[in-house]
């Protein structure tokens, strides 16, 4: 086996799992194998994908960001309040939202670095704060009626063979591509992997630990802000309870995508595939349509387990070893 195959094995396995899963669904349901379902997968999971890219960076650097769902919710509220109550044009509102979200993330990164506090806790507090700020702005769900929203929603890239990519889907694809470049062709990307590999060694090798930490949480916040914009486009509203629990969904996507929660190993593209796998699970359950609320939960859990097992199993079979590096 060549080095390349070896290195990208987790990625290949994850993708194979997605394809197999899709094929299984397609044989089960008549309307499943359609461009519409594919386009839905991309559009419906766009905000999740964008957030998950940020989460991937954070996790690669050895951290975690539990605040993303709350930041999405806060962003939608901020946009709604600015546009509807404040009469702003959406474009400057977008800018303000991105700056606020990015700044919020960076601030958390700063606290994590300066006070040497565990990211889990700092971002958990960040989650409370972002949700709380959303509540303080308004607890109502506020519809956004600006005409630009309608126009943006109608924007789509149509292909002759029937695929229609909406703006959110395109944004997500763009973010994924940019993220791949950032991860593998910039010093920042290398520093991230270094930090996740071993913080202490990275420091001894001269990696600017503080700057990188602040930047990565800032980036995660920024992407959560972008996801918030996408979410507000997607729903045409701002709501302080929007996107609850998204942090766990994104973490799951990142991990399914083959990134190690301990940091240092993983790929952005894997996360993208992970998001699609999750979307696939949901689509499957909806197409099935017979599951009660509780069986839905059980099915999600079981499918998650099956996917993880499948991944581990394939890694063992193909690589002939226990899927190393196994978690620390």
């Amino acid at each position: 086996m060549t080095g390349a195959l070896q290195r990208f094995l987790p990625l290949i396995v994850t993708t194979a799992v997605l394809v197999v899963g899709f094929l299984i669904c397609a044989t089960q349901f008549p309307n499943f194998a359609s461009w519409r379902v594919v386009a839905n997968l991309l559009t419906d999971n766009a905000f999740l994908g964008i957030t998950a890219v940020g989460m991937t960076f954070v996790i690669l650097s050895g951290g975690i960001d539990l605040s993303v769902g709350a930041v999405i919710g806060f962003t939608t509220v901020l946009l709604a309040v600015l546009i509807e109550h404040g009469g702003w044009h959406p474009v400057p509102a977008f800018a303000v939202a991105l700056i606020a979200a990015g700044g919020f993330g960076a601030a958390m990164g700063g606290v994590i670095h300066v006070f040497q506090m565990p990211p889990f806790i700092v971002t958990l507090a960040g989650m409370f704060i972002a949700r709380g700020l959303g509540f303080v702005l308004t607890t109502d769900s506020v519809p956004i009626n600006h005409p630009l929203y309608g126009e943006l929603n109608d924007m789509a890239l149509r292909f002759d063979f029937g695929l229609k990519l909406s703006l959110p889907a395109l944004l997500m694809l763009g973010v994924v591509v940019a993220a791949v470049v950032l991860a593998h062709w910039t010093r920042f990307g290398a520093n991230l992997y270094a930090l996740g590999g071993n913080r202490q060694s990275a420091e001894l090798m001269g990696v600017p630990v503080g700057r990188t930490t602040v930047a990565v949480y800032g980036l995660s916040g920024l992407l959560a802000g972008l996801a918030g914009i996408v979410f507000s486009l997607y729903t045409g509203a701002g709501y302080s309870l929007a996107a609850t629990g998204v942090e766990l969904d994104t973490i799951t996507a990142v991990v399914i995508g083959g990134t190690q929660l301990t940091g240092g190993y993983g790929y952005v593209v894997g996360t993208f595939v992970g998001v699609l796998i999750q979307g696939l699970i949901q689509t499957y359950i909806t197409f099935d349509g017979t599951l009660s609320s509780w069986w839905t939960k059980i099915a999600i859990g079981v499918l998650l387990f099956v996917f993880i097992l499948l991944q581990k199993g394939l890694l063992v079979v193909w690589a002939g070893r226990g899927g190393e590096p196994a978690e620390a």
Partner: protein
Amino acid sequence: MTLSAPGPARNLPQYGALFAVLLANWLLFPDFFAIRLQDGRLFGSLIDVLNRGAPVALLAIGMTMVIATRGVDLSVGAVMAISGAIAATMTGAGWSLPAVLAASLAAGLLCGLWNGLLVAVLRIQPIIATLILMVAGRGIAQLVTEGQIVTFTSPALAFIGSGSFLTVPMPVVLTIVVLAVTALLVRATALGLMIEAVGINRLSSAGAGVNTPVVLVAVYVWCGLCAAVAGLIVTADIRGADANNAGLWLELDAILAVVVGGTSLLGGRFGLVLSVVGALIIQSMNTGILLSGFKPEFNLIVKAGVLLVVLLLQSPTLTLFLPRPKGARPIGTVKPPVAPTSGGAKP
């Protein structure tokens, strides 16, 4: 292997924070410390803090050891729901209390075993391994209750939630018992040492002959049991099993309690009593918010603010400013102070 890590200075932030929060509650609400006897049971805000803090404290006890092995258990809330659902349903079906308790605890044990096996044998990362049960477990609980709040009338089971023993509310009594048993289990044996060793360096521990899989499975099983007890208390308290809401998001509170108690999420040294103190800090904060009459919109912000202050007090960087012998931070150490030596050296 210490129950709480060495050095009195280390415990100061926790006890100090608890004291400060209680004091703030008292300032907001002068009757805070008033306690009277009501139907043979202590009654007062302070008792509420203990009583309402019991489930999180119980979760925190189990969670502490899981975290000490460098893991985390997100499924505790769901396990609470399962054990509660089983207890209420079986009681409703006329089973005797011992059978009900045995079945609920067995369910917790099984859940813990499942988590432990995923982590120790299949080597799935703890967050994800337990996330599976976090999602599916609540489904299982709802499956048991069929989505309804299953109520019961058995005074025997209700006693666990709202009865009292020597005027002390049962949840508090149970928490103390579980804490004592757990402390005995890890302190009177070498288990505590093994847990810490595995958490700090699993490879080294295995190399030294420590049975790492068994240690890992054991902590998850114990955590599952603690969650089952917490689930029983919550169910007994409201005389019904609310599978959808019982223990919802309590896993986060439990993790928070452990961290506020000073145990590092990176594994290693742990302090059981301090985790319980952490749970009490969180609960006094919640009770304080309820008593204060703040608008509920502000709950989260107030909570986050207080938490950040409490955690900052423990930050290795801030302890720099406390008068103490000159010390050095081992480079790159991100853990909260594990030993009084890690002072921090950088400006």
